[in-house]
């Protein structure tokens, strides 16, 4: 359990040491939250431009169009379009979702939920955030280079991402930004893993940890293992671009080439598939906890859920080949990857059953965090099941690189993770800022997001099945895609609807930080350790390190008097 007790330092006094270069995990978590929300807005704007172009090709983008693209009278030009979807992907994955779920809630929740006073290496934690900022600066700077930012897709396959396909310095800066971010995330991961192993409160075994911590911990393990793989990949890509090595160059255009572009795909997906789970595991953990908290009963089969998540973590490292069926690996490899990918559905089915089991005979309170958590169950059900089409090699031959893939991974990586992130924001906001978010605005936000995102991503799967392939500027140069104009317009309207819905959240968030009603110590009436201390959490969290005596979701126990939950610090009733 706790291997040593952290000392209590004095609270920092100056503005710089308190809010900017803070060692406090809670402040770093909030910094990551702001960082992530800012990039979520930027990535969302890019998505709007992409959607606008697909629905109304050749029409000026409203409001900002003439300002951003004066040369084309406000129409998004094709080279900018390529840049937009590249950076939309990069920003959403690495600069929005990762900071929000792993950076913000990882930092904020882990020490609080395991009863520690801070992360085990606070300096490393601060360094991790500021490296992420450095990386963001590099990425944004790449937009202002002469030939613009990276435009080779977020996967940046060579040889398109070498000097043959993208001569500008933007792609090099993209690689550097990803490398720096990788270093930052790895630092964070080292910290998370060490903290969870060594700083759990006395009495807290691994299965007494809330499932949120489980999710974050498994994510950190995957991060520490696989971000260096991506790091090596982009490093070699930078060498190819800057020093003239020929790792990924081949074919007629490579003057001295004998490298292999497919090597990068292998390296990228060895990282890239676990990355999918890096993003979703925290959301799974959060949802597993919230369902139990708001159904007022213990998480159904919590141990099985934790073990399924672990199984998926292990399996996720050996299935990456399903992204590369069309590169024609040997049939034996293709078959094995298909089989391995399919086995992921067993643990997934198990925790789905557990989630529904948690709801079964509960006493469900439909507060905003719960709505978002239920939303995750719905959209992840759709997203996970549609993965089956892409895991089977023959249907993938048709669906690979179509919008069906886009719809599928947005359901799993965008919709579920984003809803999970919102659930977490609504849930931990009182502990972060000491105030409550407005429930009505939260519910409006939920329903708009839910309807909007289903319109968008279901639409994407439909146009994908109808044959529309990815990353095309104007689908209607193809005759067989012209019938899709109305559906694409519908997707765009849904996207705009969903985008406007986020204004409710922004208003609610900003207003409530200063003007929201003061939160009590335990507004949701749950028993995990962070709710045993005042809201907002005080500097250095726990005056006395708590001793854990029961599991995280002990609710609805008939022996309890006066309330239906008990704190983890209390002996099981």
């Amino acid at each position, binding site marked *: 359990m706790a291997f040593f007790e952290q000392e209590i330092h004095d609270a920092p006094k100056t503005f710089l040491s308190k809010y900017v270069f803070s060692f406090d995990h809670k402040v770093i978590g909030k910094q990551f939250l702001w960082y992530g929300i800012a990039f979520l807005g930027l990535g969302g704007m890019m998505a709007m431009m992409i959607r606008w172009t697909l629905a109304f090709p050749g029409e000026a983008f409203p409001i900002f169009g003439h300002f951003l693209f004066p040369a084309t009278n406000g129409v998004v030009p094709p080279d900018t379009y390529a840049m937009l979807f590249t950076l939309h992907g990069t920003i959403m994955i690495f600069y929005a979702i990762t900071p929000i779920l792993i950076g913000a809630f990882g930092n904020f929740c882990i020490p609080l939920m395991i009863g520690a006073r801070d992360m085990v290496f606070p300096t490393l934690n601060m360094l991790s955030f500021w490296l992420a900022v450095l990386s963001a600066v590099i990425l944004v700077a790449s937009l202002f280079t002469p030939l613009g930012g990276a435009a080779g897709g977020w996967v940046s396959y060579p040889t398109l991402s070498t000097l043959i396909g993208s001569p500008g310095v933007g792609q090099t800066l993209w690689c550097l930004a990803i490398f720096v971010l990788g270093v930052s995330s790895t630092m964070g991961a080292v910290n998370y893993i060490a903290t969870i192993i060594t700083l759990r409160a006395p009495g807290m075994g691994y299965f007494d940890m809330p499932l949120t911590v489980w999710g974050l911990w498994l994510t950190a393990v995957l991060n520490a293992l696989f971000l260096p793989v991506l790091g090596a990949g982009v490093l070699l890509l930078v060498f190819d671009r800057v020093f003239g090595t020929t790792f990924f160059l081949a074919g007629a255009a490579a003057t001295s080439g004998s490298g292999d572009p497919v090597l990068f795909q292998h390296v990228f997906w060895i990282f890239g598939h676990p990355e999918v789970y890096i993003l979703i595991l925290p959301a799974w953990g959060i949802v597993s906890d919230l369902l139990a908290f708001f159904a007022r*009963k213990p998480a159904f089969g919590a141990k099985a859920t934790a073990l399924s998540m672990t199984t998926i973590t292990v399996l996720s490292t050996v299935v990456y080949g399903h992204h590369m069926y069309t590169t024609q690996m040997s049939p034996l490899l293709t078959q094995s990857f298909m089989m391995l990918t399919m086995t992921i*559905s067993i643990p997934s089915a198990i925790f789905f059953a557990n989630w529904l089991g948690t709801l079964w005979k509960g006493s469900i309170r439909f507060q905003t965090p719960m709505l978002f958590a239920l939303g995750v169950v719905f959209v992840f059900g*759709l997203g996970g099941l549609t993965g089956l089409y892409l895991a*089977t090699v023959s249907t993938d031959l048709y669906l690979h690189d179509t919008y069906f893939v886009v719809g599928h991974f947005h359901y799993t990586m965008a919709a579920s993770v984003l809803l999970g992130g919102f659930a977490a924001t609504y849930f931990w906001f009182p502990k972060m800022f000491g105030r409550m978010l407005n429930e009505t605005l939260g519910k409006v936000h939920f329903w708009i997001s839910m309807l909007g995102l289903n319109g968008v991503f279901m639409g994407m799967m439909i146009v994908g099945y*109808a044959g529309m392939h*990815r990353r095309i500027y104007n689908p209607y140069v193809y005759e067989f895609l012209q019938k899709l104009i*109305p559906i694409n317009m519908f997707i765009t309207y849904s996207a705009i609807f969903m985008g406007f819905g986020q204004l409710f959240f922004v208003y609610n968030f900003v207003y409530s930080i200063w003007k929201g009603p003061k939160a009590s110590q335990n507004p949701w009436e749950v028993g995990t350790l962070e709710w045993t201390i005042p809201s907002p959490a005080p500097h250095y969290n726990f005056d006395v390190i708590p001793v854990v005596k029961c599991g995280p979701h002990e609710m609805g126990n008939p022996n309890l008097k006066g309330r*239906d939950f008990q704190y983890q610090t209390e002996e099981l009733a």
Partner: protein
Amino acid sequence: MNLYSLYMKFFVMNAHAAEMSLWDRMKPPLDISTNGHLIDSLFHLTTMLILFFFILVCLGLFGFSYLYRQSKHPVALYVHGTSKKHIAIVAAIGAMVFIMVDMKITGISNRDYMESFAKWPKEDKDVVRVQVLGQQWAWNFRYAGKDGIFNTEDDIVTLNDLRLPTGKKIVFQVTSKDVIHSFSLPNARIKVDAMPGRISKMWTELTTTGLYDIVCAQICGTFHYRMQAKLRVYTPEEFDKWQDQMGERTKYIMEKDSADLYWGWKWVTNN
């Protein structure tokens, strides 16, 4: 008036657009190959299976949410889901998904892949062989011509214009000059990546004559969306006639010194 035509009228602002039903818009392009139906039927089977499980999830999600809302069901049942019965139910659901869905579609997909898509036809006289070279942003096609050997003077070389016969097996060998492309025939339901430095292959057999689109499916630069070629499917007789015509023309076009025209490679046989 249903929702669909209302949407067409007020949002798409084209009432005639509603004449094509939503269902028709959602359909994939016409299947013109002998193997395409394998993919379509597996797609439909998968859809049925996942719909079954998704409906189960929804029943649980919405049903429990309705039945056990706090106002109706104020006291939650205190269970941890760790009893033998509960574990058995959960394990059964996991096993059910694996057996009903995974084993089934993996088996079918495996069979289709090994016995159709990755089973290369014997290359005898009846097989049409085409070399495909992707470049930014066009498709080059090369037929061996009369002598049956690639990269010789009587090769038929076309740009963005692929012509194929029905009823014959067609084998493509695909590569790329510069960046990675993906040679995709949506109407035949197949695609394969065109990668510089590697030769990938694909085969199909077509059934229906007509004019279709060929697509580059992998992002290959700014004008990726314009990397479009046309596929003209002929009857075998028409195809032979076209080949003869092109053979005549080739005599004037192919010059011995123009090295650019000899981009083909030695055919890699499967036999």
